[in-house]
């Protein structure tokens, strides 16, 4: 696999997914950005953990919950988290 030319993206993690990946991670993403679905795969490749590929791991961009087809631009605030357990 060739090394990707890209930029670092900071990702925040909440709930159960933070147990494995920590509170935040940085991954390399294409300069033009990528979809949330692609980002999940990049995280798996770069961390060795497939937890974000598992059912139930949700995503947000700039604090809005999004689906996998949403587009992530470098500089966006991205978070992944387990299902809300409520208050």
């Amino acid at each position, binding site marked *: 696999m060739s090394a990707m030319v890209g930029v670092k993206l900071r990702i*925040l993690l*909440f709930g159960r997914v*933070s147990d494995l990946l920590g509170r935040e991670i940085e991954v390399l993403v294409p300069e033009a950005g990528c979809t949330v679905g692609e980002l999940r795969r990049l995280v798996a490749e770069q961390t060795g953990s497939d937890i974000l590929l598992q059912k139930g791991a949700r995503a947000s961009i700039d*604090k809005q919950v999004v689906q996998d087809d949403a587009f992530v631009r470098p500089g966006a605030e991205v*978070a992944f988290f*387990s299902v*809300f*357990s*409520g*208050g």
Partner: protein
Amino acid sequence: MAVTSRLQAEPFDAAEALRGFMAGRTADGAVVSFTGLARGRAHSGDVVEKLILDHYPGMTERSIEEIAKAAAGRFDVSDVLVVHRHGEIAPGEAIVFVATASRHRGEAFACADYLMDRLKTEAAFWKREEGPGASRWIDPTDADRERLARWSD
């Protein structure tokens, strides 16, 4: 109408919150309140030393605010108040307090019920129980989802 929601790490006195909500209220005939407390035992019976409510600053506040506004818009109520903790919560401490006011009790009861059902499943929190030598994330239950489904349009 006032719709107020607060998210805080510090413990709060639910009785004081209720007194403040009721003060000077002369046009309403009903105030309903609910206080959710942290339990000292898990469903399994294991001791819980503390409850941790993980939250996402900004998103969590907004989720609570949206639920409170939706409740106020759905029922014929005068005012809605939600106070919610995050962080470490000891057994016996209040996690959440909701209060609703209306001219008659039916709408105030229904509004508080709706608020709690949505807060229990849709507020952006991740709940973990910590006990002696063990830590466990809490997932929403089928009962929580069934209660929420009662309000689907």
